[in-house]
């Protein structure tokens, strides 16, 4: 991976450069959370933050968007225009989440709406330091080596800029005087000691690597799940904030003033009551426990089995936002504790 140095005093110029290339988005503080917003005033940007309310998914599968338009002349897909949207400030877990969404939407059958939005997006990652809700060392998503266009590691006087794609490289090449590809030994030393310090500042771990088996084996132990099912409010917040939750609903809207119809997709959640109802009002997941089972099977055991990985990137959003404390941390810990048994097991 090509790596450059960008001096901190040149950072504003780098931001202006990005603004020239496309619409710039970045982390902004609103009342009680951070979110990626369009940046017109650079002073609004802040990089001293842990997590945004929603991750990068809002750029590629927004909470609500049009997919089709119907009128007298027929049906037309609403594919977004070509444009460049640059988001700066994404953390490693956000980028990992995007890689999971890419697998889902750009696998064998490509979603044309996602595809265009994804092609329009340039991701400039940014290093971060964890708080007590971050679980990414457990999920193996604390570091990222691809899935971004550029990634900035913020050190004392400079940024280390990692180039992850040709799009990223073009940005660098278009203003070469800002970047220096001579990285001194002392720069490396500063980076590695920053890295060490970061690794040491993680406070929370979960037995994530054991979870696929545990979830499988306790799947039918309903009392274990019920302690969460009974508390769950079916509010859907966990899905709204989880950067890998992508489920959507589809609805038609008739535009009264004209003979027109738009078909819209909106984020949905498997924790909501009607998620699995089929004809004849048969509900495959009639209670909250059954619905949480689906959510946590996907987060902790297998998202879609053939990918061989669960879909939690340890971002801690569910930990921060579930109003009743149901999250990957409490769920995995409860399951893990439940299997602690007094019988002595010989180590083989």
């Amino acid at each position, binding site marked *: 991976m090509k790596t450059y140095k960008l001096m901190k005093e040149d950072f504003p110029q780098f931001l202006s450069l990005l603004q020239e290339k496309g619409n710039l988005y970045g982390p902004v503080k609103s009342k009680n959370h951070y979110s990626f917003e369009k940046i017109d005033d650079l002073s609004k940007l802040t990089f001293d933050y842990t997590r945004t309310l929603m991750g990068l998914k809002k750029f590629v599968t927004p909470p609500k968007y049009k*997919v*089709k338009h*119907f009128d007298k002349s*027929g*049906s037309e*897909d609403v594919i977004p225009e070509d444009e460049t949207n640059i988001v700066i400030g994404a953390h490693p877990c956000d980028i990992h989440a995007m890689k999971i969404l890419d697998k*889902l*939407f750009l*696998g*064998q*059958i*490509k*979603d*044309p*709406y*996602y595809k265009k939005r994804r092609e329009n997006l340039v991701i400039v990652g940014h290093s971060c330091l964890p708080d007590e809700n971050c679980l990414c060392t457990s999920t193996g998503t604390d570091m990222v080596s691809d899935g971004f266009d550029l990634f900035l590691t913020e050190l004392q006087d400079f940024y280390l800029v990692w180039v992850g794609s040709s799009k990223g490289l073009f940005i660098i090449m278009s203003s070469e005087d800002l970047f220096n590809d001579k990285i001194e030994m002392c720069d490396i030393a500063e980076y590695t000691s920053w890295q060490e310090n970061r690794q040491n500042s993680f406070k929370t771990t979960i037995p994530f690597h054991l979870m696929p088996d545990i979830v499988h084996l306790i*799947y*039918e132990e309903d009392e274990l799940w019920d302690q969460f099912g009974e508390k769950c409010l079916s509010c859907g917040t966990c899905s709204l904030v989880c950067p890998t939750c*992508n*489920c*959507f*609903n*589809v*609805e*038609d809207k*008739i535009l009264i003033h004209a003979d027109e*119809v738009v*078909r819209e997709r909106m984020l*949905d959640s*498997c924790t909501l009551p009607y*998620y*699995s*109802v*089929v*004809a*004849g009002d*048969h509900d*495959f*997941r009639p209670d909250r426990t*059954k619905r949480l089972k*689906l959510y946590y*099977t*996907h987060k902790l*055991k*297998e*998202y*879609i*089995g*053939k990918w061989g990985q669960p879909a939690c990137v340890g971002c801690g959003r569910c930990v921060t936002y579930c109003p009743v404390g149901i999250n990957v941390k409490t769920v995995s810990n409860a399951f893990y504790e439940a299997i602690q048994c007094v019988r002595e097991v010989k180590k083989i």
Partner: protein
Amino acid sequence: MISDRTKLENPYEDHLATIIDYRDLTSDTRYYKLKFVEPEVQEHTGDYKPGQFAMFSIPGVGEAPFSISSTPTRPAFLEFGIRKVGSFTDALFKKKEGDTVYIRGPYGNGFDMKSMEGKDIVIVSGGLGAVPLRSVLLYLEDKRELYNNVFFLNGARTPEDMLFKEDFLAMHAREIIETHLTVDKDPTGEWKHNVGVVTTLFEKINGRVDKDNAYALICGPPVMYKFVIKELLKMEFSKKNILMTLERRMKCGQGHCGHCAIHGVYTCLDGPVFNYWDYERMVELI
């Protein structure tokens, strides 16, 4: 219709189709025959497998999945059997001959008819389950010489409730496929076939199926599966050769919306046809 969805630039592209025929099958279920409007699309009408489904769309109402009930061996049109249960189907039932709907598909894995060649096949359906299995039946009639013994066991609550009753009575008469029909109750007193639940038909085929070289294809209401599977296991069917087609809520049909997920699979991509091993592996399947 293009069955290889991976080749499409836009797998959500839908195509206008005209209702060329329809009739009531029962008091709440209707038969529809459709033909695509654009000749380039119509040319590919037969590009699907029995057991696959299509997404219907009516602008302003929405989309809903329906099993294809016709056979790809008769590629001039598509047929469906649709029960009126809610908003989409209400709107569809208002449509008449010559009206149009949008269709995209085909979706789902469908039945692998090739792998069953040379084998015995037992088809068991109940209620609305006859819709997807009718596709298999017609396919088998057209390619009968490629298969060994074929049995069809179909049940309905009453003669009035039997979908495709005329078709199946004709099938019984044609004797290309050994057809056994049953009803739970016969209030009319005019029913000339079996009375009793669908599992009572198993005695008609007992000892006549080569269990080591046989497939069973099942579709029906959730309660039916358990009893039918019990009979098949008694006959020592191999678990991987017991195939069933299932229903889930579906919003996209191609692995994007998440609604049809069961554990780590999507019913719309990995199903709707599953085998009995899958069922034992995945608790929530039925």
